[in-house]
């Protein structure tokens, strides 16, 4: 098993604030890798660095042998990294099907001119996109809702649709930013099972930020812990559970 994603010594400063400083870790292909840490530890900033929304102040990010830092977000997405957002960012006024099709569109091959003149290759590509996107929605149990507006879906289904949309990119790595946020414990247990299914069904490596410890400990093969923009620990769930620095970061150090 090799490293699919390598974050090497990455820093990101916003003015004087060191949101991420000299952070490094690697994600093994096929793993579910968790990122945990208190609020403001820099977890989402890290995702935004990996997906190109921010550029690192220094350091390198390498995905499947290619440098990602400095690339546009769309290029990074097309290299095989899908993501969801902490505050769901669906295309709310578009239908469920259109949401998925937009992500699937990167795999369609026709030029603007072919589109403007509606030449045959465009028609074939479009028909294929409708069929594949509908099949994906069926697999996610959203088939019956494909003509509803994404913004009209209940919260839990919006989260699910966001994952479906990311999967439509056909990614090798899926970044999930707090997928269980706002879910109760029963729903979280179901989500854990669901993510296991996604991982094997679509052969995708998971990198997830999460606060629900049940989900993280139950799902992840490896965990990286951040605090104040720095990596303070890394290891298997068992190692992390017993790590003194992690407990300090979450609960505060004993004053002796």
């Amino acid at each position: 098993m090799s490293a699919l994603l390598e974050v090497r010594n990455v820093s990101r400063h916003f003015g004087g604030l060191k949101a991420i400083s000299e952070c490094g870790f690697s994600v093994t292909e096929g793993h579910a890798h968790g990122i945990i840490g208190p609020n403001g530890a820099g977890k989402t900033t890290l995702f935004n660095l990996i997906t190109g929304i921010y550029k690192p102040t220094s350091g390198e990010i390498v995905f499947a042998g290619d440098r990602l830092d400095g690339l546009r977000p769309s290029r990074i997405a097309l290299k095989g990294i899908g993501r969801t957002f902490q505050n769901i960012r669906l295309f709310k006024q578009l239908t469920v099907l259109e949401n998925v099709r937009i992500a699937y569109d990167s795999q369609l091959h026709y030029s603007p001119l072919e589109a403007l003149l509606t030449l045959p290759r465009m028609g074939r590509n479009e028909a294929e996109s409708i069929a594949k996107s509908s099949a994906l929605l069926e697999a996610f149990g959203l088939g019956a809702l494909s003509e509803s507006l994404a913004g009209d879906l209940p919260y839990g289904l919006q989260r699910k649709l966001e994952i479906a949309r990311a999967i439509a990119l056909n990614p090798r790595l899926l970044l999930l930013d707090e997928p269980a946020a706002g879910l109760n414990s029963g729903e979280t247990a179901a989500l854990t099972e669901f993510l296991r299914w996604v991982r094997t069904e679509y052969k995708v490596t998971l990198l997830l930020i999460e606060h629900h410890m049940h989900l993280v400990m139950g799902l992840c093969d490896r965990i990286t812990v951040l605090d104040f923009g720095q990596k303070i620990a890394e290891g298997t769930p068992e190692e992390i559970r017993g790590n003194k620095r992690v407990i300090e970061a979450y609960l505060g150090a004993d004053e002796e």
Partner: protein
Amino acid sequence: MAAMAAFFKKLGANRYALPVLLAVGFVLSLVIPQYGLLNGYVQFVLIMIGINIILSASLNLVNGYMGEFSVGHAGFMSLGAYASAVLTVKLLPDLPDAFFFLPVIVGGLVAALAGFLLALLSFKTRGDYLAIITLAFLMIVKSALENIPYVGGPRGMLGIPKLTTMAWAFFWVVVTIWVLRNLLYSKFGRAIAAIREDEIAANSMGVRVREAKILAFSVSAFFAGVAGALLAHLLVFINPSSFDILKSTEMLVMVYLGGIGSLAGSILGAVIYTLLSNWLQDFGTWRMVIMPLILVLLMLFRPKGIMGFRELPWFLPKREARRKDS
């Protein structure tokens, strides 16, 4: 009223209705001027409706579907008008009437080039800032034209041949709507809608935001240029101040009246606006009170316009219409 709505719904769903209507419309557009079936003024108004449909549909692509705010479309229009007039007046004065499509296309291409450059330069700006850039563009085009003696400076160009007929106007309306429909229901159209909804999410889903914006601006500017070329060869006289901010405002009214994000809305807006503004001519100065008032009321009570983000089945490609039925 309900019976009428039902009738229109049935008509909209009928697959043969549109081609038949188009054929009848085209024949009429040839026959009416030939036999003088309508008086000259009515013919003029009908051609203006056609030109305004092209304008509102083209502006709707940027302001409605992509959710940006361009006030510079009169600039694209004037580039199309001047480029085509230079061809028919100065470079190809002996052009046969049947080749009128040529200067119109050149006018469209010149405008599209300007749209391309504008989108390229302003790619990172959004919202208010983009609106200001398009306003600056409009002013630059106007003052540039005023200072080029070759095209008559501030006095403008005279003696442009009257080549815009009802048939040509009808032809270009059909081309505009057809091309825009094809674009909107393609991956590029979905990319444009995704940018409107959430640019960051679009980017992260592999949408090439820069390319999509450039495409939208270029296509939109092309058709604004086409409308400009048609207008120049209808009025047979143009000057830089015919394409000022008021002209852009007219287009905005049409788009926001008919409905953003809707081809049917663009057509509806252009028809209502053209008829209304011709009717209001009789009211003299009051026109300048009534028109803005309509815009204010519209923004207050129906900000997305009459058709806002709704479409008639006619303007959907077959595969989309079929899917929506099932």
